[in-house]
């Protein structure tokens, strides 16, 4: 059964249709990519899934639950994490704190425990810290652990963005252009992370990316959007042959 189903979603801003009648099926355990020209509605799609926008029409289901009108924290609590296209970090905090924060929902202790900081609260906080350290290891962020996120270079911030989403330990990870602003080498690193995430942690990945090389190489499934409509979908090979896609996005090389 499909993990995430987007059925007939339309999203309008005033007169502008950012998405129109989009259908998507995201299979569990795979990497699904969404591509398309700028302003095609890719980010809007992720926003609809993660609850930042609510579709004007249509529905989105996760497993059996309808999340069309859920707010972001509800979606996140269902196990869908999100990394943003434009950096949305807690820029006044250190990398470590950014990651610790992401575990909010997984920490179950009461307010009273917190005030007195005994028993449960202290134990769970220690576990939380341990978990975050594994992510820091995994994403190779050790050197930046204690530095203020706002002072890091663009590329590193993007990495923190992905790491933070990972910290949520989600079922589905939505990545919005995680490789923008990186050079070849760094892209390779991120690709490796993404593939490891998918393989080792069995997380379903939804990827929005402009680097066709990356997309074609690692996706299991691709959706192509243009002006808010799906103009093609399928395996990388299928998409690469699709004339509409070539015209709208890839261009003749």
């Amino acid at each position, binding site marked *: 059964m499909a993990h995430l189903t987007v059925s007939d979603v339309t999203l309008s*801003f005033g007169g502008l249709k950012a998405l129109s009648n989009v259908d998507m099926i995201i299979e569990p355990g795979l990497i699904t990519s969404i591509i*398309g*020209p*700028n*302003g095609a509605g890719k980010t809007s799609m992720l926003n609809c899934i993660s609850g930042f926008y609510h579709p004007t029409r249509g529905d989105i289901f996760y497993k059996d639950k309808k999340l069309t009108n859920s707010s972001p924290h509800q979606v996140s609590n269902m196990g869908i994490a999100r990394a943003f*296209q*434009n950096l949305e970090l807690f820029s006044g905090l250190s990398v470590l704190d950014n990651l610790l924060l992401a575990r909010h929902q997984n920490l179950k202790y009461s307010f009273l425990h917190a005030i007195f900081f005994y028993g449960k609260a202290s134990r769970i906080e220690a576990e939380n810290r341990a978990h975050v350290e594994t992510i820091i290891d995994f994403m190779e962020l050790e050197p930046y652990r204690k530095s203020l996120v706002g*002072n*890091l*270079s*663009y*590329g*590193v911030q993007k990495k923190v963005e992905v790491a933070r989403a990972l910290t949520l330990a989600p079922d589905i990870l939505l990545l919005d*252009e995680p490789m*923008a*602003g*990186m*050079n*070849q*080498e*760094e*892209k*390779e690193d991120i*690709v*490796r992370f993404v*593939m490891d995430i998918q393989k080792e942690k069995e997380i379903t990945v939804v990827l929005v990316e*402009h680097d*066709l*090389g*990356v997309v074609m*190489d*690692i996706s299991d499934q691709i959706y192509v959007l243009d002006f808010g409509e799906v103009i093609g979908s399928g395996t990388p090979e299928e998409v690469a042959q699709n004339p509409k896609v070539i015209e709208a*996005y*890839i*261009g003749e090389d």
Partner: protein
Amino acid sequence: MGKNLLEVNNIEVVYNDIIQVLRGVSLNIPKGGIVSLLGTNGAGKTTTLRAISGLLKPENGAIKEGYIKFNGTDTTHLMGTDIVKMGAVMVPEGRRVFKHLTVNENIIVGSITRKDGSAKIREDNELMYKHFPRLSNVTNRMAGYSSGGEQQMIAIARALMAAPEMLMLDEPSLGLAPLLVKEIFDNIQKINKELDTTILVVEQNAKVALAISDYAYIMESGKIVLEGPSKELQDNPDVKEFYMGITKGGKRKSFKDVKSYKRRKRWM
């Protein structure tokens, strides 16, 4: 090609008085040329551009060593406004358009430092829409609602309105779809030819950057590690592998095959 328009000599930049980011960077930009600056994340490319355009101060950074000369004048410690007036304008990383201003207002703002009369400015304003016809459809829309590519064009047009001698672009291809990248870089080339604007472009997308530039620098951890005419660098095997993803066989290497170990770069 004429003499050097910009000369960056051995500068060192420190943030917050403690974090040293640039460790002796030198660049020369010839008049009328296109020069590209490549490098890894956090290498200090953005910092270099900030240093040249006098915008370190707001970030609590400062040039501690070395000097920068623009058009023969020492600009090391000048403020951003003065440097713009002298003719060096930067298009900042992440575009930074004025979200709540209309597209046209964004472009007009670029002319704030100019003193050559409103007629000339209006003329240039028209000219921008010739360069970026895409923008002429959306002149009265809030810039914040424009797509990424449009915002990049707005940012470039805005910078051009200052009638600069030298334009510095910080990752213009960031987040743009392949077709748009092409369009933007075509535009850059055109601007260089038609307006005779010298261009310094910082890029992650080495392929396109090397394709349009005459000369290139590669930067890592605050130092220039490699430089040369773009043509030569395009053939450098390390550049090929690390910046363009081309294997020794000349084929594009697949991301699926990336290994967890890293080959050492020869220049390190």
